[in-house]
């Protein structure tokens, strides 16, 4: 089984994120076991529920949610990166965090990296 972990460091309003999404979806379609996507640096902003992108622009967050639902793709955001960028993660209900995303520490990146045959950064 081919295993893949992906690190995303670009924010949801960057068009570079579209390539990350296209790549991950192509991997899933090809039957690759994508064991998780780790959102680090500006990538953590993906989990902010209050982000509002003009409706005629590419909706990166919705597409990640879709992949999470359709393929049970694990989406991790780095808590330190998220808090630095205004996503309150410390409350019990984490009501500012998009429910498709799991609030994780960098330890999760270690897990993904040691388990995956390939690590790809976007």
């Amino acid at each position, binding site marked *: 089984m*081919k295993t893949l972990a992906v690190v995303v460091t670009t924010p949801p309003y960057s068009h*570079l994120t579209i*390539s990350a999404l296209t790549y991950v979806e*192509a*991997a899933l379609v*090809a039957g*690759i076991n994508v064991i998780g996507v780790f959102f680090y640096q500006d990538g953590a902003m993906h989990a902010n529920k209050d982000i509002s992108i003009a409706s005629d622009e590419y909706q990166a967050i919705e597409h990640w949610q879709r992949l999470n639902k359709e393929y049970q793709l694990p989406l991790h955001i780095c808590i330190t990166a998220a808090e630095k960028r205004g996503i309150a993660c410390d409350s019990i209900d984490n009501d500012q965090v998009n429910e498709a995303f799991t609030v994780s520490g960098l330890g999760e990146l270690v897990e993904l990296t040691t388990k995956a045959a*390939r690590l790809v*950064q976007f």
Partner: protein
Amino acid sequence: MSTLHLVRQSAFATNDFAQCLSVLDHQDSIVLMDDGCYNLKHSLMDSLIKRVDGTLSINVITRHAQARAIEISAAVQHIEMSDVVELTFNHTKVITWQ
């Protein structure tokens, strides 16, 4: 031990592509994507193409180049994102230059 290099930045704007080329091995492959497509017209490309000897391969994502109105030269392979997934596992590791 071969590397897939994902090149996402314009060499006209930043130094990243030059850094990529400085560690390039003869068994490696390059994929030009996003603004990396602009590098097809950069002088670093000319010297690189001379190094292509049957093992080193240079690829560009067709849609990314087309979107930017960049003519794709015959010296490079036109590929899709699904090919990048395949290349990922045909090489032992991936480095993204962004």
